């Protein structure tokens, strides 16, 4: 890698430790990339180049010293506006969100605020107020969203990593479509203070990175404590003793054949690393979409209530319509959806327990990045509305509230797609170990 902007965080740290690269050089390299491609990709809604240079001059000696990051514009960074990608709504936070404060204390350089769907209430990376984000692999394609900016920036060298949020798949979908890794930590694993909420039952803050190892480091820093590797198979193959359940209902007829083939290849690599793969079947998982829709729409309407009452006309039409309908959902309907959610979650946990599964596996998106003007996409021979298609595989694995890792596993026509691994509560270390082992094996040419 000749341009420092293309390094992983781990490689940049190595070069800086060896004295071959300075924080200032790294940040200048990233800022040059922002200058060259930022306009076309629309990955940032706000860039603080001078602030980044200032931070790079005194990076300290923390684990992220001098590492340039992109923070999704629903997360507060002191000194930068938080707009949530909205028209007219903004705040000027006096303090960093705790996750950002921890990144800065570790030496991270915040380049700016990343593109997002309006109020993070979208899955495609479009934004009628600020313009759509463009996919670095083909700017005529969508990035996915709503963590569109950090994913595109990380993929294109406009940052070495990022921070985003995930309510329905907003970290995982853009990670899949842009070819980067992302982790949705378990609910409650990271503080949500200083983050514009969308739905309390689902909102999670998490890292975006070029490698699973980088995502693990960012998670460590944002948690404030290291994630201990607890993979049991120390003797023998790296992942001996682990079991993964393939959620077959999320593969057959739910994704394009090239995605299913990619998942199959990825599982073959994992088997070679020692993982035992078993089919996992659920009676209730197909109810997850309905549960999620009712809960999310109700909670989003409540969250947006006061602002919406004043400014409904300033919302994008699709977001406005969902919020209006959300206002009209009866309380009993919301509670019945939360009761049904308990059944879905109980079944997910029971199957993982009974089958002794460390993780569930499924594709992240049913297809590669669609064209920017797509309203529907083809999935296994059927045309499916874009929003429904893009979140069709992430929503079911969101329900349990456990961690979900998304990592790239292949390309089709030069466009990336990914795999999700969903773990139990507290299972982040195991997911990250599986992902890192997969990356190590495939990077070596497996």
């Amino acid at each position, binding site marked *: 890698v000749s341009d420092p902007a293309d390094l992983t965080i781990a490689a940049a740290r190595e070069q800086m430790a060896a004295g071959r690269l300075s924080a200032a050089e790294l940040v200048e390299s990233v800022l040059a990339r922002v200058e060259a491609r930022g306009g076309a990709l629309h990955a940032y809604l706000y860039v603080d180049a001078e602030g980044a240079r200032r931070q790079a001059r005194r990076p300290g000696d923390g684990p992220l010293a001098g590492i340039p990051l992109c923070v999704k514009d629903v997360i507060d960074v002191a000194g930068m506006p938080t707009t949530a990608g909205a028209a007219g709504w903004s705040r000027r936070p006096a303090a960093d969100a705790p996750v950002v404060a921890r990144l800065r204390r570790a030496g991270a350089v915040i380049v700016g605020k990343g593109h997002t769907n309006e109020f993070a209430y979208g899955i495609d990376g479009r934004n009628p107020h600020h313009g759509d984000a463009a996919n670095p692999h083909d700017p005529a394609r969508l990035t996915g969203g709503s963590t569109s900016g950090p994913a595109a920036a990380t993929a294109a060298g406009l940052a070495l990593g990022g921070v985003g949020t995930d309510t329905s798949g907003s970290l995982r979908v853009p990670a899949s479509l842009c070819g980067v890794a992302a982790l949705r930590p378990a609910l409650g694993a990271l503080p949500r203070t200083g983050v514009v909420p969308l739905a309390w039952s689902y909102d999670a803050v998490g890292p975006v990175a070029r490698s699973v190892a980088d995502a693990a480091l960012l998670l460590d820093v944002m948690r404030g404590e290291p994630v201990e590797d607890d993979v049991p198979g120390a003797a023998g193959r790296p992942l001996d003793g682990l079991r993964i359940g393939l959620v077959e209902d999320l593969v057959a007829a739910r994704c394009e054949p090239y995605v299913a083939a990619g998942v199959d290849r990825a599982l073959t690599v994992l088997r070679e690393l020692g993982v035992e793969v078993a089919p996992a079947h659920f009676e209730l998982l197909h*109810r997850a979409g309905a549960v999620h829709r*009712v809960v999310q729409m109700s909670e989003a309407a409540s969250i947006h209530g006061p602002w919406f009452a004043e400014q409904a006309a300033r919302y994008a039409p699709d977001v406005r319509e969902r919020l209006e309908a959300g206002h*009209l959902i009866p309380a009993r309907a919301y509670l019945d959806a939360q009761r*049904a959610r308990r059944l879905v979650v109980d079944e997910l946990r029971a199957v993982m327990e009974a089958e002794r599964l460390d993780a569930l596996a499924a594709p992240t998106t049913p297809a590669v990045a669609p064209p920017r003007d797509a309203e529907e996409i083809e999935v296994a021979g059927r045309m499916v509305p874009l929003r429904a298609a893009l979140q069709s595989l992430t929503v079911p694995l969101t329900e349990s509230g456990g961690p979900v890792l998304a990592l790239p596993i292949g390309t089709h026509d030069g466009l990336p797609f990914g795999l999700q691994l969903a773990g139990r509560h507290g299972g982040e270390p195991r997911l990250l170990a599986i992902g890192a082992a997969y990356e190590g094996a495939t990077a070596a040419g497996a």
Partner: protein
Amino acid sequence: VPLPAETVAALAAAAGLDIEPGRLEEVGAALEAVLGDVDRLRELDLEDVEPLVPPAG
């Protein structure tokens, strides 16, 4: 059966929402879809199931 515009207008008024008459139909369709979701969820046996809302503390 689509929700009549008058029903949507009445619900909106009760919720303090001001929806233009020309948009009542589309909002009604979105609401209709989500209430259909709820009906299907109620086919499950929800008796004795508490909502998955975190308890205080």
